């Protein structure tokens, strides 16, 4: 297991590299020495990194498979779009930074509330059932969002369900989603969000609550007998993750001129899961790398477009098979020479 020192070093390196990348990329943007495709992907990459990190909190740290994570992103995205449109049209708030901030906060809060409401029934279940129910909720969210209409008329927000006849400017148009969105999201905001979610997740993991979450994951009965309320800590991880996903969604939604509700479906949830698995389940810095890489790579390898998902699928299976193979596990341990195994045995005998 990581010693305290190595953990601190990993964290410092992670933050350091991210800050460095941000500085470099910002310079490149200002010098216009960045390719158009990469520039357009910067904000989505930030969103997907936050999605991957937050899903890893649920899957890797809390040990529960959530297959509906994209649903929270969707809730955050549309909440963000609604709030931004409402503030602009109803309150004449011209300042994009302030609107973006409020939109992201709103996205996070609403997604968090959804996470709490969903978590209460879901986290009572175990394993496969929990996974399927998260999938079910994800689909329900998508279905419902498809039927929601929102318009802003003066300062009032009008809602319609299955009925699009609303006064004022339409912000959300049922199955057509959001149209003519003012894209106020910025790369700086994305970077700040990434740093924020990293701080939240890493600090949570390395704290009393984080230990409780991991204990609940590793040995439920032992954790309970130590006085740890399993449901409370699973909720903690789940709701925190949904808040972050909502924020990521708001950022993403406000970077797209149009956005369909079907964009946040089971496929997207699986995409994020692939990021998490390939980056290492429980490995937070790994999620950052895989989310970024797997967002950029498909663009670079456009010609392999048709084979991309196939390659993902094969990779996913291979990674799972290899990481659960006892011989591979022994080999990895030998290579990285875990201090625990041999030396402690000598100490005990002496």
């Amino acid at each position, binding site marked *: 297991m990581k010693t305290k020192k190595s953990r601190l070093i990993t964290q410092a390196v992670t933050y350091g590299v991210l800050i460095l990348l941000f500085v470099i990329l910002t310079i490149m943007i200002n010098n216009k020495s960045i390719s158009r495709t990469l520039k357009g992907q910067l904000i989505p990459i930030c969103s997907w990194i936050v999605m991957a990190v937050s899903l890893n909190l649920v899957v890797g740290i809390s040990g529960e498979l959530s297959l509906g994570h994209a649903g929270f992103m969707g809730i955050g995205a549309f909440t963000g779009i609604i709030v931004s449109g409402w503030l602009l049209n109803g309150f004449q708030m011209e300042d994009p930074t302030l609107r973006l901030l409020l939109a992201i906060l709103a996205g996070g809060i609403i997604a968090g509330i959804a996470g709490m409401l969903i978590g209460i029934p879901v986290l009572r*279940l175990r394993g496969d059932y929990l996974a399927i129910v998260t999938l079910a909720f994800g689909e*329900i969210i998508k279905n419902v969002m498809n039927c929601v209409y929102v318009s802003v008329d003066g300062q009032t927000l009008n809602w319609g369900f299955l009925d699009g006849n609303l006064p004022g400017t339409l912000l959300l148009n049922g199955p057509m989603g959001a149209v003519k969105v003012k894209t106020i999201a910025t790369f700086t905001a994305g970077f700040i969000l990434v740093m924020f979610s990293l701080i939240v997740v890493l600090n949570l993991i390395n704290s009393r609550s984080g230990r409780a979450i991991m204990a609940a994951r590793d040995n439920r009965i032992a954790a309970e007998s130590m006085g740890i309320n399993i449901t409370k800590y699973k909720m903690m991880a789940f709701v925190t993750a949904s808040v972050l996903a909502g924020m990521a969604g708001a950022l993403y939604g406000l970077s797209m001129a149009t956005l369909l509700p079907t964009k946040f479906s089971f496929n997207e949830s699986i995409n994020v899961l692939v990021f998490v698995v390939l980056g290492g389940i429980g490995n937070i810095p790994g999620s950052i790398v895989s989310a970024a890489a797997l967002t950029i790579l498909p663009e670079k390898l456009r010609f392999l477009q048709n084979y991309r998902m196939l390659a993902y699928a094969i990779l996913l299976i291979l990674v799972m098979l290899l990481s*659960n193979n*006892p011989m591979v596990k022994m080999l990895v341990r030998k290579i990285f020479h875990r201090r625990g195994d041999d030396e402690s045995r000598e100490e005990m005998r002496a």
Partner: protein
Amino acid sequence: MVFLSNLVNGISLGSIYAIIALGYTMVYGIAKMLNFAHGDVIMVGAYIVFCAAQYWNLPPAVCILLAMLVCTVLGITIEKLAYKPLRQATSLAVLITAIGMSYLLQNTALLIWGANPKVFPSLFALDTIRLFDGQLSIKPETLITITANIVIMTALTLFISKTKTGKAMRCVSEDRGAAELMGINVNRTISVTFAIGSALAAIAGFLLCSSYPMLMPTTGSMPGIKAFTAAVFGGIGSIPGAMLGGVLLGLIEIFGKAYISTELGDAIVFAVLIIVLLVRPTGLLGKPVREKV
């Protein structure tokens, strides 16, 4: 009359879900895993029937048998390659692998057959049955589906209770270690379970596309998930449960779409799943399991 029509369609759709659910429930009972790829095996079966009928002009019975053969081999191969090595792994790992396998099948199908929906040919030369002075029309596909369900259910129940392999399946699902000690070949039993489930998937694929003739690589995914819902609804590990859950779910879906809202049809089905799992986690006919400390 609309009510009766919906009723019949509901039972028919439910029968398809029931047949698919059988595969899920048997595999879950024996291998304690959720075979996410099951829905996509259905899709493969449907494509094989399609190719056999459309391109190779084989007679209907041969098409179906060919699909069953291919799917059986596919199911056994998947089990040996991806699930067997993970028997000692966490259920999280197995579930993720199954999801990967599902995507593998979908994308391979995409590469082979393309994304354009194929129109499934009608393999029956029978006429629509008209009842009540033509007010209620039942398509032959519908009747065949319901009949197939009943036949399969009966056959499977007899198989499980009367044959040696069936008994072995029940033993392995109850206590794998003990079964092994009693000399049962666990690997073979699990393979047989997957084989039966996959063969049934082929039949389900054929029936599904006969009633709903659009065939795409993603065709199996949603029915697969809904069928799993049905399996859980009826009680995972219980064969009559799969039948009951399937038919009930089909009825809920059809009536939900008819009387509440078409758009929210899927949402209603999933809402049912959630409610069932919360109120009665072991399903309608399932048995509670105690954990040993």
